[in-house]
């Protein structure tokens, strides 16, 4: 124990950043020269590595290996069963980006639909979540209960919810029934809201916004509750009304949260596909095909065709697109500020 304590003491001066190697060496106990300290440092480092090893190993296996594997696959042709990959170089990428008359039209259509989703979902989420958070913040009673109610869509199982939406949106579903009941029968969608190519994608965007609002609303609510009340009081004393103080004081202060909400939703919109797979399968026709869904189809729903490499390449293109969109988004928000 004594030796251990002495070692710690001996090392500390150097660790304090005095940079006086001689003093440290002189202050060290006998037999604890530079070599001893080095050994001790190594021992400490070994313990450190030992503690982080499980996490590193796990990341190496689940993260690095799969990333490298997936990236390599994007240059190959494989159906998941062949014993070997067939190397194709950049052909998968060039095929997806205009080189193949078979795949390019699919990617083009899916990219256009994805663009609408990427614009629509984050924007609408902010437009719904922020006012909702404002209202909820001003409610004095039952705020906890109301917050839980508004948060429910997020904690409900996705698959079940998507099936429920399917029933709601059917020709004889709740939406059409509601419209008829309130005398708006002319607005009914006789083929169902997912059955008409003109309404299917906007409807899917609404469903995605419905799922995204709870988290965004909660983030805004947290932001609103941590606002310094004296700022608003000062504004009110200066004669600013509710609308004025909300738009000129509260909204600008919520900008970091808005950036996070938009970024999260851009990512989800670019890569998410589960709701599309379950609710529309990209249809009717190809009106709701999105890039995430096409990636999944190329990988797993292509009747054993060797398109896993193409799927991987499309996945990487999506990743690059996500990076670019995130970068542009951040720059734009910074400029706005």
């Amino acid at each position, binding site marked *: 124990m004594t030796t251990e304590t002495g070692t710690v003491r001996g090392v500390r001066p150097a660790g304090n950043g005095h940079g006086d190697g001689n003093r440290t060496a002189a202050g060290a106990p006998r037999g604890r020269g530079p070599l001893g300290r080095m050994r001790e440092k190594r021992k400490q480092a070994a313990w450190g590595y030992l503690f982080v090893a499980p996490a590193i190993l796990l990341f190496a296996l689940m993260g690095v290996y799969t990333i490298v594997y997936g990236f390599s696959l994007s240059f190959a*042709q494989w*159906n*998941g*069963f*062949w*014993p070997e990959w067939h190397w194709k170089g950049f052909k998968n990428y060039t095929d997806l980006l205009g080189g*193949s*008359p*078979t795949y390019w039209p*699919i990617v083009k259509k899916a990219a256009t639909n994805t663009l609408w989703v990427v614009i629509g979902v984050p924007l609408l989420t902010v437009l719904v979540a922020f006012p909702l958070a404002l209202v909820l913040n001003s409610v004095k009673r039952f705020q906890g209960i109301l917050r839980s109610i508004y948060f429910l869509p997020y904690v409900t199982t996705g698959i079940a919810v998507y099936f429920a939406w*399917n029933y709601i949106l*059917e*020709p*004889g579903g709740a939406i059409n029934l509601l419209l008829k009941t309130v005398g708006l029968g002319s607005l009914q969608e*006789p*083929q*169902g809201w*997912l*059955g*008409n*190519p003109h309404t*299917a994608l906007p409807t899917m965007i609404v469903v995605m916004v419905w799922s995204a609002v709870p988290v965004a609303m909660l983030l805004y609510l947290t932001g609103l509750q941590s606002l310094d009340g004296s700022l608003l009081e000062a504004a009110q004393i200066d004669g600013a009304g509710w609308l004025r103080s909300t738009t000129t004081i509260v909204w600008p202060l919520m900008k970091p949260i808005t950036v996070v909400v938009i970024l999260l939703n851009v990512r989800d919109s670019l890569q998410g596909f589960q709701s599309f797979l379950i609710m*529309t*399968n*990209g*249809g*009717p*026709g*190809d009106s709701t095909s999105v890039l995430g869904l096409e990636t999944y189809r190329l990988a*797993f*729903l292509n*009747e*054993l*065709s*060797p*398109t896993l490499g193409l799927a991987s390449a499309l996945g990487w293109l999506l990743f690059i697109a996500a990076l670019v969109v995130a970068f542009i988004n951040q720059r734009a928000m910074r400029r706005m500020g």
Partner: protein
Amino acid sequence: MAALQAAAKKFTAETGTKVNIQAVTPDDAFLTKVQAAARTNDLPDVLEVHANGDDLAFGGAGLLEDLSKDVDRTWLDQYLPQVLADGTVTEDVYRNSQTEGSKTQGVEKGQRFSVPLTVGTQGVVYMNKSRAEEAGITEAPTTWEGFVDALAKIKKAHPSNGGMTIGVKQPSTALEWLMQPMAYGMLGKDRFEALFGPDAAKGWSSADGQKVLNTYNQVTPYWVPGTQSKGIDEADLAFAQGKASFDIGGTYTLAFLAENGYDADNLMTFPVPPPKDAAIPRLQLSPFSLTGLSVTKKSEHKTEALKWLKFLSRDGIAADFGKQALDVPPNALDKNQSKTLGPVLNSMETAFGSGAKAYNAGYTAYRPSLYDPGKVGAVLAQFTPLKSRTAKSTGAQMSSMIKSYWAEQKK
């Protein structure tokens, strides 16, 4: 599952060999599981596969045993002549496997990777018998015009649920199960196959192609609302629940309808009929193997696995299996054995034919090997039921897609 388990019980009683059966559905989950099992050397001894599909792809990848030497003439003699070659690498299959991007790469001519378990065909119309009788229809339509007339009469009598459904959420259904059999009957084998051929002048924009599309369009008023957003199972369920009076499927649809409570006695079934002036009037459907059984290459119980396959192929066992599973067995059953299958399966069997005058949905060698029916079907869905394309633009788009598949193949 229950039918296979019952057969397994008999097999164990006869040979002492136990068979454990595991069902994995849907298709994509099955494929993922096979893929994972193959990579961890954990495949079962026997796999049930889509015949002329999974079997050839798995076989080409080296996962399945080549059964060509084990399946001898005596074994084959039990099957319908139309399905004898199913599961084997024919000249067409081999040629397609040589194409860049083909899923069957690696196969060799003459190999056999499966033996048939169930047969059947697409292009079977299921009509609600009692509603048909109410509308004065007592016999199954034999022409396209008669079919459209039946649709109109029943729809008139039942405006809210008199229509037809098929599950266009998987858009290949309407193309392959409804339009193609009608087109085959209308044009005959060669002109039908030319629609998918490399010569665009004979494709979907040609007079033949436009005639097919315009005739097919006659069913547009009779789709059940929302058909385009229903999957196959959802469409079958809608029919079983009385929300539709017609359901287009295959022989395999019967089992699903029965499972979901539909009374099989209330069914009138018939093959999708061709028009009056068709090249092949009274079109029949050629059965093909829907599923087959394969032995995995690394199986340690190859002898027992082969015995199990042989056991299931026996007439008596196959007839019992078919009856219990409500699936058509691949055997050339005699009249008495056929009777045990029940009236509906029997009526389907009588719609079976062979040769160039029967439409064989399982034969696809005339199409480019990279052809994707889902993508082409999605274009057709825009024509009907969606009505967002004309026959002309649908034909042009389908032709252009088929041209691109041929272009890819020739690269």
